[in-house]
């Protein structure tokens, strides 16, 4: 399954029943130099729209919302230790969390890559 995108500038990559979630390159560019990332603990359950993570640049703080319902199964400690990784590689090594998907139906509402490209154009 290919990558999905939200209007809040997150990407979601699905493998089996686990979704890897990050923020888009566009979002990282808009934020500027990321200096701080706060991630949830493994085992925490989220509903779609909940505050899930915090990302801060030199100037501003932003919330990252849960794009789907699910339980956190893994977090990317590398971006907590070195927040600049979010700017360097938002689409891949700068991922935020992996979530066990509760409701696969919710993925249907998200944008595909070309729709997201139009959205940010």
């Amino acid at each position, binding site marked *: 399954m290919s990558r999905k995108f939200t209007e809040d500038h997150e990407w979601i990559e699905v493998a089996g029943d686990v979704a890897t979630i990050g923020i888009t390159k566009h979002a990282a560019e808009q934020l500027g*130099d990321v*200096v701080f990332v706060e991630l949830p603990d493994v085992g925490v359950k989220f509903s779609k729209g909940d505050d899930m993570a915090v990302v801060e640049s030199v100037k501003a703080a932003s*919330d990252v919302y849960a794009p789907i319902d699910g339980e956190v199964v893994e977090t990317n400690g590398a971006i907590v230790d070195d927040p600049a990784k979010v700017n360097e590689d938002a689409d891949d090594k700068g991922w935020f969390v992996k979530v066990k998907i509760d409701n696969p139906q919710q993925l249907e509402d998200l944008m595909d890559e070309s729709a997201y490209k139009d959205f940010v154009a």
Partner: protein
Amino acid sequence: MTNQPQPTDTDQAACLHHLPLHDLHVSLEGKMVPFAGYEMPVQYPMGVMKEHLHVREKAGLFDVSHMGQAWLSLKQGVGEEGAHEKIAAAIETIVPGEIQKLGAGRVRYSVLLNDAGGVLDDLMITRPSSPNQQGRLFLVVNAAMKQADFLYLAERLGDVADLTILSDRALLALQGPLAAAVLEEKIKTVSTMGFMTMRDMEWAQTSLMVSRCGYTGEDGYELSVSADRADAIARALLADERVQPIGLGARDSLRLEAGLCLYGHDMTADNSPVEANISFAIGKRRRSEGGFAGAERILRELAQGPKILRVGLRPEGRAPAREGTEIQSLDGETIGTITSGGFGPTIGGPIAMGYVDANYAESGTKLNLIVRGKPVPARVCPMPFVPQRYYRAPK
């Protein structure tokens, strides 16, 4: 992902003014944002972090043309014997600084006061060097406050002085350890100027008022130049590979690391200069003589200590504590609020300033900052966060 509401100086009015260097900022791919009624570059493609570090290592060019520039001039007697003392006496009724004894060609940081001793704005006051200009003072005030400041100056000093607002002049700041070397190549002898002095100089068929000052904690200059020559001057400076254009984002992080107040945030009309921890701006003679707006409160606070005080704060860990963050004692009592906070690129970690109950203002005091509902341990620390590297002329 959504930005949390940020306190900004954004003027939401539909009509945003363009400054003389607008086209240059756009050609440099500056990210333009509303600021104090103007469209201003918050950053360039280099980004806030690298721009900040570049200023600390080399030299950066800032467009600060949105700031208010004005001449305050005696209605009568400019250039005559005793003219400076007259204009100084007038402005000293609303600023607490020593202006009478300010030398010719010297610049002073001061504050405009209301009758309650509150700070209406902070400003730079320059006494011109030329004998025939005595009786005049060159003022630079904050962009967001300039209309109010100019009205206040006219209201309070209008009987003896005229205010000439220089809306046709741009203001450029060249800041950083290489600023003097860069500018010396353009304007001979500029590197011999003392810090906080001003000279009238010529470069590229352009008259410049060159002040050796700034608001980054680094050595540097501010150049006041007519609007129609600003673009040529800015491009000539940017042609030097040591110079990069720097946006308002890095200007803010630089001044925060330097421990300098941003008016409207770290200091408002409710705060006295004593509370704002800028008592250095209150002259020695003024402390004994008084005679300025709000002197009763300010002299009392100098003698007895203020109830609250602006302090520097270093949060533990990496989470920045932003403006508006509640400050608590270790007992959980609310003792203050952060007024500026973020990440200091030179420090490599979070820094903040804010007001605390004066009982908690001593350096080293441990307290908590309530960030997203959770206490973040922090301690009071001396400012500036990074050493100021202002130029000191050899004696």
